[in-house]
């Protein structure tokens, strides 16, 4: 069996790290779903305020999404602009 080079090790670990970083997607998924459920509930209770409710819901979901997007950016950096490979 040939020896694993340092570069290959870093690339492999970065790929695993990118996958782990995307676990961050769970949080925004739950949060956005909860917000959407509450929004649907409120529209059911007050159908005349639908426009305002949808706008507020989207605003909250956009802010809740931030952590997931940070995870995605970390994953993209690890895959395509790896800073660790230059440390060798």
């Amino acid at each position, binding site marked *: 069996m040939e020896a694993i080079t340092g570069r290959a090790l870093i690339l492999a670990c970065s790929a695993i790290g990118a996958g782990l970083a995307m676990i961050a997607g769970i949080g925004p998924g739950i949060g956005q779903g909860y917000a959407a459920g509450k929004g649907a509930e409120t529209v059911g209770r007050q159908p005349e305020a639908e426009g305002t409710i949808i*706008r507020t819901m*989207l*605003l909250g979901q*956009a*802010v809740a*999404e*931030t952590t997931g*997007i*940070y995870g*995605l*950016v970390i994953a*993209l950096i690890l895959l*395509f*602009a790896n800073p660790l490979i230059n440390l060798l």
Partner: protein
Amino acid sequence: MEGFGAKILFEIPLFDGIPVTETVVNTWIIMAVLTLFAVIATRKFEAVPRGIQNVVETLVDVLTSFTKQTMGEKKMVYAPYMLTLFLLLAFSNLLGLFGLRPPTADLNTTFALAMLTFFIIHFNGITKKGPLTYAKGYLEPMAFMLPLNIIGELALPISLAFRLFGNIVGGMIIMALIYNGLASASAAIGLSFAPILQVGIPAFLHLYFDVFAGLIQSFIFIMLSMVFIGNAYD
């Protein structure tokens, strides 16, 4: 490794050579389209709107009333800026439909736009509240919260830029993976000369990633800008 970054198309032979990327060229295309649209659509205005005048009036009406609702009567000066921002972002995000790279899939574009919002917020904070009240805002609720408040302010443009960038670039990468996958699937059934599976199947994904997510993200960008700028006043 072959990445998903913007390709450098050519270099302007000034100084050490200024690289011009796909992002810049695609932004030029959008600028040309929007300028042409503005010139053609506003040439002959009539009292009873017809044809393209209806589109322009609807756009201006919707954005004006939306700004009024979100920011209030006194901050209506931002309506034209928000409409411009919305049109630029919407056209950028929809550019993926034509097989071009959306300029918003580049962190430089989104960060520049987020910095505009950032500077508007702090300029208004200093001039409208007065420098002292503005500086005092950083010591709320307690003086030792100062570093946290500063980090919170700096996180605003970063989250604004990364939200748009992450959504668009994520959609772009998924689309690229699906196109590549369909090309290999066509090659596997012996049609490598014509990747026939690429026809039709990605259309639904374009509908979601480019049209739906693109428009929602441009809307969210201007809405968050409006809310943050509106908060800077009081």
